[in-house]
């Protein structure tokens, strides 16, 4: 489908596939990104057709570098794409601030996928504000067809303006699917050449730099004005509804679908109209003036923060003479929440209260009891590590070593599956958790507080991919400043959380091509940290090692706990051990065990027989890692190696 030539044919596509197809139709040549839900499938889809479609696709070490790699493509005249999740824009923003000033050549599109409601994130950051802050155009597709079409258009818009264009997707668009009519696909392989010998001030032929800043900044703002003018007639901005609506809803992105559904449910299509914006920054002033003038009440529906709302209010204020007085509803006045995902229900309630339409919806009691039931009666599916996950074993050892040491040591974490150690899944071992690599930076700081009397052992954890992404500078900092801390690298050989994308430590690239790998231990050693390695599945030895490193070593230290992810292609579906519980030996909930395996260790492969309190192995779920045999105090869990 991605390379289908059947123009006009409809396919059911996931939002991220539609975006990938749009980029292919636009003739993209370079695509780079850093994995992160809900964005990863865009690069993955492009990677899957890279050789055939003459594309260069890479998973870069982090978002900033991915933006730099994509920019190089653009500087050399190619169309290029850069993809990341919302918080990635923060990482890339330093380069972005300079890129928007120097401008781009070949069409360049930056696609952040936001995650309202933080369904698979630890924040619900907004990338849209970056478009305003960086003064670049922002596009927001409202459905799957638009996801493809706007992506395609974004490249030519970028070329027309000479600057990078941001296209923002959200989880419900990226990960849901809908019908998409394909456009023409004419792949050619353009030649890349970077021209730099022209005049210093010539954006097309000179060096690509930000100086002189006032000159370039003026140019940049000119591009933005031009964008606003182009947006006035964009087909991605549409109005549907009566000429003089009682209520004008202004919306964008997935919220367009929610607004339409709300009007339908309330049967108010004749009273209220929807202005659906696809180009949300800069706002096309004339289009907005026209629609605002025709309404007295305006509801702005968007996800998450009141971005549109603020910009529209400024525009309305500046044009109050021609537009007249308007009563605005949205997030600032509390009509809609400014956290979490939007949904049709919120919009229905907002409209019914503004227009005084009685809406009973679900009786409150019913809703409440539904919520209670779904909480209490649904099977307990706590957030936890997979069966056979090395992280559970790693935290077991780290936690126990810190307890034995008895000096109130703690672990600073960051972003990855392993963040779940803030929960019982990882025995609550992580005590600080922020952005990529930040655990190690924070630990580097904690490790310098001895002179203030802080004697608690300081440990940070960091995944292998995260280590390359942002952990390395933090470790360099810790070594250079001789911080007293231990970095534990949880090396599970891949970017597991987002679906096994390779990283610099893996000898392959986005398209499965062979690449040189970078040795984590070698890096740490050459930086100057004392390094150690351990196999977390060997729990007793690992615990001992952690304890020894904490108690007998000082300064910046690195312990690499190496064991592949249970879901990795090499391991998935292959049991190393057959495991069973001898119920005659199992102590169950008696004094002497009290269900250590099912109550504390809690691998989903272990279940407690509620009648006897004794443990059993769920053969289907158990991944056969054999670790539980080592943690059982009674020797009741038996394992035998599966013959290969």
């Amino acid at each position, binding site marked *: 489908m991605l390379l289908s030539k059947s123009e006009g044919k409809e396919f059911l596509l996931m939002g991220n596939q539609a975006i990938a197809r749009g980029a292919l139709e636009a003739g993209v040549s370079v695509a780079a990104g850093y994995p992160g839900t809900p964005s990863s499938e865009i690069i993955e889809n492009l990677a899957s057709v890279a050789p055939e479609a003459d594309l260069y696709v890479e998973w870069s070490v982090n978002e900033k570098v991915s933006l730099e790699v994509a920019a190089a493509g653009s500087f050399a005249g190619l169309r290029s794409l850069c993809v990341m999740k919302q918080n990635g824009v923060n990482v890339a923003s330093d380069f972005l601030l300079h890129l928007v000033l120097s401008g781009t050549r070949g069409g360049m599109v930056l696609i952040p996928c936001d995650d309202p409601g933080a369904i698979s994130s630890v924040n619900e950051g907004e990338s849209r504000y970056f478009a305003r802050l960086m003064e670049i155009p922002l596009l927001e597709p409202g459905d799957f067809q638009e996801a493809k079409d706007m992506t395609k258009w974004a490249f030519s818009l970028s070329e027309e303006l000479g600057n990078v264009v941001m296209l923002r997707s959200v989880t419900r668009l990226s990960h849901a699917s809908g019908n998409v009519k394909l456009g023409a696909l004419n792949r050619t392989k353009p030649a890349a050449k970077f021209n730099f010998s022209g005049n210093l001030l010539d954006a097309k032929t000179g060096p690509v730099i930000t100086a002189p800043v006032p000159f370039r900044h003026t140019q940049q703002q000119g591009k933005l004005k031009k964008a606003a003018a182009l947006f006035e007639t964009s087909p991605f901005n549409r109005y549907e509804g009566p000429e003089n609506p009682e209520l004008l809803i202004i919306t964008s992105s997935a919220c367009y679908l929610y607004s339409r559904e709300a009007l339908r449910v309330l049967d108010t299509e004749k009273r209220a109209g929807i202005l659906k914006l696809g180009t949300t920054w800069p706002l096309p002033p004339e289009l907005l003036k026209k629609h605002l003038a025709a309404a007295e009440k305006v509801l702005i529906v968007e996800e998450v923060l009141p971005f549109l709302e603020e910009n529209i209010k400024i525009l309305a204020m500046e044009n109050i003479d021609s537009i007249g007085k308007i009563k605005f509803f949205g997030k600032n006045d509390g009509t809609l929440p400014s956290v979490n995902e939007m949904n049709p229900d919120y919009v229905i309630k907002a409209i019914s209260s503004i227009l005084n339409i009685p809406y009973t919806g679900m009786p409150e009691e019913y809703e409440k009891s539904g919520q209670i039931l779904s909480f209490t009666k649904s099977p307990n599916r706590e957030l936890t590590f997979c069966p056979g996950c090395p992280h559970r074993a790693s935290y077991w050892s780290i936690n126990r070593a810190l307890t034995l040491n008895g000096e109130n040591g703690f672990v600073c974490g960051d972003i990855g599956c392993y963040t779940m150690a803030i929960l019982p899944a990882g025995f609550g071992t992580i005590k600080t958790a922020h952005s990529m690599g930040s655990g190690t930076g924070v630990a580097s700081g904690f490790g310098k507080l001895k002179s203030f009397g802080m004697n608690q052992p300081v440990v940070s954890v960091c995944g292998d991919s995260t280590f390359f992404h942002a952990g390395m500078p933090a470790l360099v900092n810790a070594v250079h400043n001789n911080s007293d801390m231990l970095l534990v690298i949880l090396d599970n050989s891949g970017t597991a959380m987002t679906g096994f994308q390779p990283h610099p430590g893996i000898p392959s690239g986005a398209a499965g091509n062979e690449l040189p790998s970078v040795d984590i231990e070698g890096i740490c050693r050459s930086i100057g940290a004392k390094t150690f390695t351990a196999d977390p599945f060997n729990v007793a030895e690992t615990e001992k090692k952690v304890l020894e490193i904490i108690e007998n070593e000082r300064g910046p230290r690195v312990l690499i706990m190496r064991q592949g992810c249970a879901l990795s292609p090499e391991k998935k579906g292959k049991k190393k051990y057959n495991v069973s519980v001898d119920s005659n030996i199992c102590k169950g909930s008696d004094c002497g065990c*009290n269900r250590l395996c099912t109550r504390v260790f809690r691998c989903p492969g272990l279940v407690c027989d509620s009648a006897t309190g004794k443990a059993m192995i769920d053969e289907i779920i158990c991944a056969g890692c054999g670790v539980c045999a080592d943690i059982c105090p009674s020797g009741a869990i038996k394992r035998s190696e599966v013959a290969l």
Partner: protein
Amino acid sequence: MQVKGSKEIRAGVLDSGLCTGCGACVSLCPYYATHKGKTVMHFSCTREEGRCHAHCPRAEVNLDRISSQFFGEEYSASPFGSYINIHSARAGDKAGVSGFQTAGTVSALIKFALEKGYIDSAVLTKNEEGFGVPFVIDNPGDVEKASGSRYSVSPTVKGVNDAINSGRRKIGAVGTPCQTLAVAQLRGNPLKQEGFTDPIALSIGLFCTWALTASDFTALMKSMGDISTIRKLDIPPPPASSMEIETGNKSYIIPLDDIRKLIPEACSYCHDMTAEFADISVGVYEGKTKQNIAIIRTERGRKIFEEAVNAGYLETEKIPEEAIAPLAAASMNKKKKGLGKLAGANLINSETGHTVIRMKKSTLESILKGGASCC
């Protein structure tokens, strides 16, 4: 006695500075561990009743019940607890023990009991990198590997649990008063387990005024040089007031005042100086460096002791009344101080919350009211 669980141990003992580090709760289950003389809890256990609480010498210890169990009488306000007689003793030539702390009575008794089959194993305490760790032996030849005193808190009773777990049922246990108290509790089968038999065939208690926080003491030792070269470490009885350490080629004298700073808070709650629930309690004979004082408390203790004397493993002398007066005074003093502190913290016979000791009110009052020296 009201048996509770680990929640009470954590709050009432570990986190309240009452834990003696005896190790009685370790090796019963995966939740307790001991490291460098300190007892810690891994994760948490939700059981409302457990052996950890039942064996702990700092939780619901009913002195009258234990006393009745071993001696057929309630706990009294006397300085040494219940006993049959008191001797001056030392290892005889037949015992062939060396490296002992005072006069080798303990080592000789254990060796004799092992050789004669009164016990099939013994739980002693050896030195490992400056820390006292339990040492389970089956062989009389191994007794000497653990002779001498480790003055730091040691989890010796963990070794008793290990020995029981490995099927040993005629165990000789040597321990300080808190350790001996824990052993006495476990011997009473507090959780009423079916088919229980007392696994302890000989309990030897050591006199004790205090022990030292293990990590601090080891750090102090290490600051004096290689701890593996320490040959002898002794606290001579009063009027001396110092600790003497002999290493390979040097000897050190550390003022006791400096040493006392390393005493854990837990010891200040202790009321037992002579290990009152042992079969035989052994300590220093003040003024006679080459002699121990041995308090024989039970029939089986008396039997083994007398046979050891007859076999030449021990040499004894009669001890004049006045010779034990200083010990009686010191012992009464410790009772008064320890029980007084516990009572002050509402940890005796407490109706609500944590209780360390249960005992007859009148006995308590008579101890607290008594003069520093009595009898």
